Structures are given as structure tokens and as C-alpha cells.
């Protein structure tokens, strides 16, 4: 097992609210780690700390053994920390394929000099990215939507596009923030299948999800968070069996 992600004593507070209280987690290559807990537990904040949206007050984050603490958000993405968003944050005036074309770790069109003077190399990079994007869409059964505006698609498909866009980043770590919220039917099956495939390809995946059956189906290990703390780290069965956690989470 190769450790892809390791956080060491991550702390973050906003005034009196502690969103991250000495968080230590690890995710291995090929593993799908579930992250569960009530609203406000600090799950998304943890994603924000790992991906670089937030800076921790103290503590460190290692990707493949390398500290990423000083790298800003965009650099961490280039290092291979890919994430999705609860509310997708799609580029809403663009088509599906354009949403994906923006997202490779290295985007040829980002440099005005390269676009102006290195047209050949940009063109071949664009061609490769397009092929890759169509491949990802095809895997999700969405190849036919490539030229549609993202906002014209039903919600479940938009969720999948959010994942597809993130998959353009072929890095070692994939953070999925509530991929199943509001998703049902065919999109649900596709989402599960794709996440499983990505892990099988060797990625370390972390899923924040309220849908416990989704977590149970996908994850061998899960972490339970509340009030910025990790309360338990174990198999999904252990977590579900824990009476204290069930009370806290489900209020039963």
C-alpha cells in the first residue's frame, strides 16, 4: 500500500468555531475512504484545507510524502489534488466539452504567449485533451451531451459532468464532495461505477457523503467526523454499529 495523502494535526478555527481539530487522516493508493458526519462536522472544510482553498492554522498536508502546505490552490491541483464541489460550480455559459477542456492538470491555452506564438503545440494539446474528455464522457454514457450547454442538462447529469471535469485531472488524489446529493436512477449507478473504476486505476479517493448506502457499497474504511473532530476511524460496519455515532448522526 502506498500512502497518497496524509494530514498531520490539521487545525483550523473561525473565531470560536473549530472546523478542524487535530485532524490526522491517511488515504492509500486505490482506497476509497468515506467521510461521514452531521452537517457542520467539518467535512467540506477538511476538503478545503487539503485542496488549498483554506490555509490551516497549524498542521501539515503531505501528498505522496511531499508537503504541499506552501502551495496555493491552483498549484495543488497541478500536483494532482482533484476535487468536486457540493454545488458543482460548473462553468454555466459553456458547453459540456468546454467545461472539461479547461480542466487538465496542464492547460495549454492558459499562457497568452503559448497561444500566440506556440500555436502548433497548443493545437496538439487541445486535440489530446478533447480525446481524453470524450473518453471520460463516454464512460459515463454522456458522449452525446458534449456540445450541450451544461445548464440544459438534468441535475443528475450535471453532477456527473462535475465529476467528469474533475477526472480530467489525472492526479493521485480525488476528493468528492457529496457526489450523490440529489442524484438518483441511472446517474447513481454511473457515479458508483466511475468512482470504483478510478480507485481501481490506482487513485486515492475520499468521498464526503450523507448517503450511507453509497458509502457502504463503495468504501472499506470510513471516518466519522463531528465538530471538527474525528470520532472514529474504521470499517463502515463498525461505524454503523457504533451506537454513539448512530445517535449523533441519525438522531435515533
Amino acid at each position, binding site marked *: 500500500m502506498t500512502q497518497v495523502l496524509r494530514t498531520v494535526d490539521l487545525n483550523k478555527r473561525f473565531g470560536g468555531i473549530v472546523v478542524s481539530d487535530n485532524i490526522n487522516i491517511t488515504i492509500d493508493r486505490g482506497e476509497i475512504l468515506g467521510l461521514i458526519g452531521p452537517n457542520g462536522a467539518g467535512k467540506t472544510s477538511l476538503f478545503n484545507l487539503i485542496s488549498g482553498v483554506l490555509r490551516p492554522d497549524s498542521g501539515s498536508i503531505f501528498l505522496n510524502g511531499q508537503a504541499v502546505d506552501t502551495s496555493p*490552490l*491552483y498549484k495543488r491541483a497541478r500536483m494532482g489534488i482533484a476535487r468536486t464541489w457540493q454545488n458543482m*460550480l460548473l*462553468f454555466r455559459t*459553456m458547453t459540456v466539452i468546454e467545461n472539461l*477542456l*479547461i480542466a487538465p492538470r496542464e492547460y495549454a491555452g*492558459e499562457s497568452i504567449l503559448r497561444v500566440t506564438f506556440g500555436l502548433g503545440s497548443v493545437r496538439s494539446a487541445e486535440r489530446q485533451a478533447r480525446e481524453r474528455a470524450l473518453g471520460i464522457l463516454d464512460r459515463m454514457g454522456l458522449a452525446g451531451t458534449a456540445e450541450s450547454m451544461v445548464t*440544459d442538462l438534468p441535475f443528475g447529469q450535471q453532477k456527473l459532468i462535475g465529476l467528469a471535469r474533475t477526472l*480530467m485531472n489525472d492526479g493521485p488524489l480525488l476528493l468528492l464532495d457529496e457526489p450523490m446529493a440529489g442524484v438518483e436512477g441511472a446517474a447513481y449507478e454511473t457515479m458508483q461505477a466511475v468512482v470504483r473504476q478510478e480507485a481501481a486505476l490506482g487513485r486515492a479517493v475520499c468521498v464526503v457523503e450523507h448517503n450511507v448506502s453509497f458509502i457502504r457499497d463503495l468504501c472499506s474504511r470510513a471516518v466519522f467526523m463531528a465538530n471538527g473532530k474525528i470520532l472514529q476511524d474504521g470499517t463502515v460496519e463498525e461505524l454503523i454499529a457504533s451506537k454513539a455515532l448512530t445517535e449523533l448522526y441519525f438522531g435515533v
Partner: protein
Amino acid sequence: MEYLATVTILIAIYVILAASYNLVIGYGGLATVAHPIFFAIGAYVSGLLAIHVGMPPILSVALGAVAAMVASVLLAASSLRVSGDYLLIASLGFQLGLLQLIRNLELTGGPGGLSNIPSTITGAARTPAFLAITIGLAAVSVLGIRAIVRGPYGRAITAMRDEELAFTALGRNAMSMKIVIFAIGCGVAGMAGGVYAYYFQYVSPEQFEVLQSAQILTMVVLGGMATAYGPVVGAVLLLAIPQAITFLNLPQNIMAPLQGIIFTVLVLLFLFLRPTGIMGASESKPRARATEAA
């Protein structure tokens, strides 16, 4: 004819200004009111180099553009780092402060401005030459900006404007893209300033007041924000209408307020009836995108 030619040259210069402002504010979504001061930097730097160094026009106009570009990077890099909204305030301060400096420095001729900028082209060929130069530069600016916003770079600009957080989290450096867009837009404005200085051979602080940005913004909005040819239409309309009115031979006390009334009515009409501007996608075609409308 000379009068018409002068109006046309002025329109061409304003097409460059409006197109570059559109790149910054329309495509880039960077709220700034400092466009006139970058126009001024280009004009003063080119003018001063022409007067004191006797530099050839192409070189001095280029240096004017570079000066505007450097100044814009200083402004953008410092203020965008704080927050996007901060740029508006910082650009206002930059515009007012630098113009005040120009008004008070001996080097720039103080409030009286810079006169006696040498005319490099003289005689009968002067007006046709400047017509060709300004129209040519306007065309190059408009088409150049169109090329920028259409390709992969333009796609990145659109994505950044749509959802900056997601854009950055995908590995895109939004900050440096904003600075580059700002620098290109302001550099082009500086170039327009250089040509302006050479043609009119005289520049003074009141030609670059902050209210100029309202006029240029009106051109952009009326023509169509984030469209390639909107600024052209806007600049032509807003400069031609007042000139056309002068042919009506109305008394001055009616004429002066009439122009203001026409502008205001136009802006209000467009806000209500066609907020996307003349060249913008109409409401009935929500699928049309900025890049397509271009």
C-alpha cells in the same frame, strides 16, 4: 472634409479604447475606472519622447504602450492580491492621483498640458496618413482582441468569469490571467494615447478625466459587453451622434443639454430593452455564448 477626417480619426482612436476596455471589463470582468489614465500615460510618454528625445514615432508610441502596461501591472498586481473588488477603488485612486501628478509636474506641462509635439508627417499627406494609421490600428486591435477571446485562452477567460473558485481549483492561475488581461487592455489604451498625441500634437490633463471612463463604458455597454464588435458600434454611435447634432444648427443653450439627454435616454433604453447591447445575444437566444456572439 478635414473636419470629417478628424472626426473619423477620433472615432478610430475611441474604437481602440472601447475595445481594450471591453477586454478588461467585459471579458475579464475586471472593474476598473482607470482606463483614461492609461490612455494618458501612452499619450504623455510618447509626446515627451517625441519632444525631448526626438524619438521616431513608432518607437515612442510603442514605449508609451509599454509604460501603460507596466503601470497597469503594478496597479493590478497590488490590488488584485487583496481582492477583486479592491481593484475598483484602487483604480479610482490611481486615476485621480496620477492625473493630479500630471497636472502639477513641470515635465508634463502642468495644467496647460504638453504642446508642440512634433508633427512627423506634414503637408497634404498628413490627414490621409493618420486616417490609415488609426483605422488600421483600430482594426488590428479589434481583431487581435477577438482572436484572444476566441481560442483556448478565451475559453479560460470565460471559465474564470463563470466560476473563479472552480477554475482555480482545476489548476488555473486566475490571478496571473487577470493581470495579463489587464496589462494587454491597458497597453492597447496606451498605444491609442500615443497615436492621439501625435495626431493632435497637444495633450492636456482634462482630456483624460475620470469621466472619460464613463463615456468609454457607455460605448462598451451600448455596443454590447463581451462582444467583439460591440465596442466598434458603440464608439461610432456615441461619437457620431453628437457630431451629427451640430449640423442641426440649434442654439447652443439647447444643443449642450440635448447631447446629455440623448446619451442618458440611450443608456436607459438599452438597460431596459436590450441589456446585452446592440451586438449582444438577444434574450430569445440564451444559448448563444459570449465566445459565439463574438
